[in-house]
């Protein structure tokens, strides 16, 4: 696994973090996010992706979620890529998310697996998501946006490339 780049939000906050010029030399992508948003309506919120600036349609997701001891599942058409802590979560607390995108340069529709958790003093939010982007284009860029509000300072999103090798070795 190799770090491609990390986007870090500065003191002014940011509406989104955009990665351009994603190298096409890896097999899979991994997105690791540590985020907090200004959304004042909840302790946590989804973050969205727009692959290749191709728009927000042709996405589908299945989510398994918990809020405290309450577990629920639902489907949707949002382009979910992770989870952010929001303004009602404990101060200076960030949600963590990982999103794995296998075969991101192959001419097939793209599937993404996402795990996320946002800690809270009373209820921690957890999500397991399967997301599909019905588009066979290789992923060369992505715009990552909180569902509501803006990312706050110290939010980071790191993009990693994974190159499959025999026996799990990294092939350089």
């Amino acid at each position, binding site marked *: 696994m190799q770090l*491609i*780049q*990390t*986007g*870090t*939000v*500065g003191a*002014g*906050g*940011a*509406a*989104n*973090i*955009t*990665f*351009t*010029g*994603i*190298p096409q030399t890896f097999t899979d992508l991994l997105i690791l996010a540590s985020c907090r948003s200004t959304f004042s*309506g*909840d302790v946590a*919120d*989804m973050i*969205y992706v727009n692959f290749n600036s191709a728009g*927000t349609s042709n996405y589908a997701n299945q989510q398994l979620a918990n809020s405290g001891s*309450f577990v*629920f599942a*639902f489907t*949707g058409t*949002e382009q979910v890529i992770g989870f952010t802590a929001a303004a009602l979560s404990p101060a200076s607390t960030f949600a963590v998310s990982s999103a794995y995108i296998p075969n991101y340069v192959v001419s097939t529709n793209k599937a993404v697996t996402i795990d996320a958790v946002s800690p809270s003093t009373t209820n921690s939010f957890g999500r397991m998501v399967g997301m599909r982007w019905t588009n066979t284009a290789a992923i060369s860029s992505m*715009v990552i*946006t909180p*569902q*509501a*509000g*803006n*990312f706050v300072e110290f939010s980071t999103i790191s*993009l990693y490339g994974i190159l499959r090798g025999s026996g799990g070795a990294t092939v350089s």
Partner: protein
Amino acid sequence: MNVLKKIVVDCSTGVQEEIDLTPDEIADYEATQAQAQANQLAREAEVARIEALKTSAKAKLVAGEALTTEEAALLIG
């Protein structure tokens, strides 16, 4: 934040820039967020509806009263 900005990371050069959103990007951003919030409100309403049904179903079960088909499905799938 008076001016909406985005963080743009060019993976080919490693350069990270803070760039103001264009008017079109701001319009898209605001429209997306409005729709997203409407979606979340709808989802929260559905969760609340299901919780209320479960509570009703449990109470009926304990009291020996008839459940609706939807209530029964929530309890036992």
